[in-house]
């Protein structure tokens, strides 16, 4: 155990900080769930890519910096401290990217990864279906092999920002006689392919944050399949646990929220202290964010020593989603009767965050599913 950053790590931090100071836009962007805001965010991603910051853990030859995970944590800390914009291509960079690196052919890597790093392509995820949510193995969208193509039919849903993306990675049932997690294939599909219809879904905040994607005899070439035919589930799962457990939600983001919450509390302390649970909640916010950060450093250290992350990823998911909800609820309480006023400048960000936090315990595997996983895989309790 050595809790000092090396000189190289300190230098890296300084480099990140300097670059961000010079480049982070002074004005907040519009919501990335609007066309205008999405474009702003996409341009910011391109700026990041030009600076070489879009995917710091990727190998240099693919547009990254080959950073280790400690550097990744440092980058995220500086990024959050600088209040830099939210990232809009994380589905590509965090989920598809590493999967491509592990399972992709050389041609696939060359074709997709550099464009992804530069944000030339924006990726949507296509796993959920109307009847395959928590029970993802119930996927029924089909990919029938027709020579050197697959013909896709079916429907995907909850595809984040799909109306703005140009590619989607999906699981399809390629063996029509299969069931559950067998016989699925992992396919990369251009969203402008004939036969695709995208229908936006309005989220709580009224914005079109998600979409349904309908596939009607969509043809994609076999070379768009990632991994072997029928092995899609394993391909999807191989990285899902690790990503979900570690990279999906960097701790710095929660530390930043906790810090802002403490600021908000101090600003309104006299009125907030009329409710003793607020002070308690503010302390818990700090404790939770610190704990999540420490757990991440601990996990990163173990991974760098060769450990694999298993079902612990599920404790992570529960922890950050509940922390996020608790912090935003606390902010609402501090803001009191003003909390509903969406155009109030002090309120706006908290209110949007509060709405977004509602979904945290649902997406990326509901917290009920995560608790099942912990009980069955970590504790060995019987499935039924």
């Amino acid at each position, binding site marked *: 155990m050595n809790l000092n950053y090396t000189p190289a790590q300190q230098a890296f931090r300084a480099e990140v900080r300097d670059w961000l100071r010079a480049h982070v836009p002074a004005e907040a962007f519009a919501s990335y769930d609007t066309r205008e805001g999405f474009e702003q965010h996409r341009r910011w991603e391109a700026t990041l890519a030009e600076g070489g910051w879009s995917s710091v853990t990727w190998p240099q030859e693919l547009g990254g910096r080959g950073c280790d995970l400690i550097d990744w944590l440092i980058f995220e800390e500086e990024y959050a401290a600088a209040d830099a914009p939210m990232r809009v291509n994380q589905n590509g960079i965090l989920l598809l990217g590493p999967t491509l690196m592990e399972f992709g052919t050389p041609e696939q890597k060359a074709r997709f990864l550099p464009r992804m790093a530069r944000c030339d392509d924006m990726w949507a995820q296509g796993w*959920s279906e109307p*009847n395959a*949510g*928590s*029970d993802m193995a*119930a996927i029924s969208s089909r990919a029938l092999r027709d020579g050197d193509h697959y013909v896709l039919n079916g429907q995907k*849903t*909850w595809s984040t920002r799909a109306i703005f993306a140009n590619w989607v990675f999906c699981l399809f049932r390629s063996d029509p006689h299969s069931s559950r997690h067998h016989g699925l294939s992992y396919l990369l599909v251009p969203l402008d392919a004939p036969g695709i219809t995208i229908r936006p*879904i*309005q*989220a*709580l905040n*009224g914005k079109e944050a*998600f979409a349904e994607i309908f596939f009607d005899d969509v043809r994609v070439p076999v070379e768009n399949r990632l991994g072997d035919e029928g092995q899609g589930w394993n391909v999807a799962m191989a990285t899902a646990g690790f990503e979900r457990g570690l990279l999906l939600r960097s701790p710095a983001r929660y530390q930043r929220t906790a810090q802002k919450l403490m600021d908000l509390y101090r600003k309104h302390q006299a*009125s*907030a202290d*009329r*409710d*003793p*649970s*607020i002070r308690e909640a503010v302390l818990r916010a700090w404790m939770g964010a610190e704990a999540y950060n420490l757990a991440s450093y601990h996990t990163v250290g173990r991974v760098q020593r060769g450990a694999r992350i298993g079902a612990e990823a599920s404790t992570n998911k529960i922890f950050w989603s509940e922390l996020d909800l608790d912090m935003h609820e606390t902010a*609402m*309480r501090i*803001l*009191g*009767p*003003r*909390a*509903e*006023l*969406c*155009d*109030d400048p002090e309120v706006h960000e908290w*209110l949007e965050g509060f*709405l977004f936090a*509602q*979904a945290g*315990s*649902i*997406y990326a595997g*509901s*917290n*009920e599913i995560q*608790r099942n996983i912990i009980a069955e895989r970590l504790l060995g309790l019987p499935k039924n």
Partner: protein
Amino acid sequence: MDFTFNEDQQALRDSVSRFLMVEAAPEKLRDIWQTDAGRSSELRAKLAEQGLTALSVPEAHGGLGMGDVDWALMNQELGYFGIPDSLADTAYLATGLLTALPEAHPVRAAWLPRIADGSARIALGHPVNPWVADAHLADLLLLAHPTEGGTEWHALAPALVQVTPCASIDASRRLATVAWAASDATRIADAAHGQVLADALLNRGALNVSSQLLGLAQRMLDLTVDYAAQRKQFGKPIGAFQAVKHHLADVVTKIEFAKPVLYHAASALARNAPDSAVRASHAKLVCAEAGWFSARKGIQVHGAMGYTWEVDLQMFMKRAWVLDAAWGDRAFHKQRLSDALLNNGALLGPGATFNTLS
């Protein structure tokens, strides 16, 4: 000692419920809320026809002369069906304020009949709220004017005020800040009497939203139970999973133990009991918690569907979130409760609930 409702009260509630089920279906409300005004004069007329605007107007002015306890039931229905603020603000809160003016007061005499027949909308500006609800369509505004000696009340015609809207996350809300000038001509209650009115209005306002919050909690529960019974995953309805069952059972418990607190507080207010304020705060806290909790469990059980605009849950969830802090946020009511309990031993212990020991 009989802490129940009689059959008439229950029958009235049931009939209002049946009426609103048809007339205030979510798709109708969505249409209304999307208009600029956010209100439908047609729906208001139907509500008046049902007698809802006349409920607590004294009989002498064409009303039904009902009181806080009846409203505790009725408001649950208004909450359940997401009826916007203007109705209860006018027919319950403003009516309460006007009725407390001297009988001969011209404003009282002029407006109570118009409330009863459904032709008037009245907006209220109370210091506990940083905004005024439904000021934009008000035929009359009753506005508090805090002074050193207490809170005066003034009645203003719309032409005398300047209304600046502020957007709420809840699409049913039409909030605004109101700029106006107090004058002798507009004053309807001086500081001494006005403070009494302000205090009573605050408690009544808190109960008003408390009962709506309970109705909202129940609505979200019902929507969620329906969803859980229909939505299948892993080969069975998700409502068959124990985790979902236990989420929803906890919502039931929160609602069921908030109800009697609300009824008791309404009765205390109606009797002008010395512990009205602490009982109102207790009711507001538990009803707000029931609303908030039902929202949380509702969206969790709805899964991603609950995060959409399309599914009705969001209409009621947002209303539950915002009413949580209306007419005194949790901090306000906790402080009142805390002060009362630390200073008034008569509120504590067995037998204290109905004040027999004080």
